[in-house]
């Protein structure tokens, strides 16, 4: 009798296994898409005004140009903050390795310009809102390995729906 019961159960076990596998595959698919192709990100804070709103925009970022080193000056990038690895920040890439970057260290106080050569394998990032941002002008050039993706599309709010350009609007 016990064996008969087990035989009856077999299709159910098989079914359950297949369903689990399907869900697992689905989740793996999400993970791979998210970390290798493209991901959503929520902006926050004033540092990228006027490109992104103060209240937070929903943006799409792609991972391919980071992986294949197709980043260009002017791209808006997702980047792991060098000061806090748990935080992802959104800034504009304004200098690649080997570039000479001129920057004003303290906007508002005086307009004294500093010049720096970005070392190889590093990038220079700045917020669009020069007066209220925490960027390379404070912590210097950052290693390319911290760049996580390129923001290319604003999804929300609807009135800003559209691509994110290389120029500050």
């Amino acid at each position, binding site marked *: 009798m016990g064996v008969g019961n087990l035989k009856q159960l077999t299709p159910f076990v098989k079914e359950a296994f297949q369903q689990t596998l399907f869900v697992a595959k689905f*989740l793996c698919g999400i993970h791979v898409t998210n*970390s290798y192709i493209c991901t959503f990100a929520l902006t926050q804070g004033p540092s990228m005004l006027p490109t992104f709103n103060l209240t937070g925009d929903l943006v799409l970022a792609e991972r391919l140009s980071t992986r294949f080193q197709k980043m260009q000056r002017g791209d808006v990038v997702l980047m792991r903050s*060098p000061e806090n690895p748990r935080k992802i920040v959104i800034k504009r890439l304004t200098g690649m390795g080997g570039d000479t970057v001129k920057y004003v260290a303290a906007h508002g106080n005086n307009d004294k310009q500093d010049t720096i050569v970005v070392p190889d394998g590093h990038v220079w990032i700045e917020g669009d809102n020069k007066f209220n941002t925490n960027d390379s002008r404070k912590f210097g050039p950052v*290693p*390319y*390995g*911290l760049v996580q993706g390129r923001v290319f599309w604003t999804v929300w709010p609807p009135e800003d729906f559209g691509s994110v350009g290389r120029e500050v609007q």
Partner: protein
Amino acid sequence: MGTVNFLWNLTKNYFTFGLIGLTLSDRYASIVPVGGISMSPTFNPHDDSSVRSLTRDFVVVEKLCLEKYKFSLGDVVVFSSPTNHKEKNIKRITALPGDLVSTPHYDAVVIPEGHCWVEGDNQAWSLDSRSFGPIPLGLVRGRVTHVVWPPHRFGKVERMTPKSIASF
């Protein structure tokens, strides 16, 4: 028709396998070979160039630590090189944010917030923080827990503090 079906199934299986494998290695753990002698004697203790490729150590790198980026002094970590992001290095964390490090090139460095100081166990033969300075913790890609190959060296990678390194 049968061959097409067979090929289609094979492709599908490979794809599924790849998808699941990639996810597991990204989120949980992966096994990577260690090249070079900068971490000798912890990894690759024999410096013999003729057999080096045959006796490379394989290690388990766990990724769960990347959820919180919490590391302890003495952890062995994999990180992308700050000068060339395609290159992965394996070194030991010898100082965490707030610690004071004295080196031959820099006088004394206080590790800034969100950074760490990495050094190879083989001090004489290692390109590490002593030449490129503290690195952001965000570059860390995982923590080495075990050596799995060659079999006679199978074992846990011990967490060592700088003092115990100095006593080698």
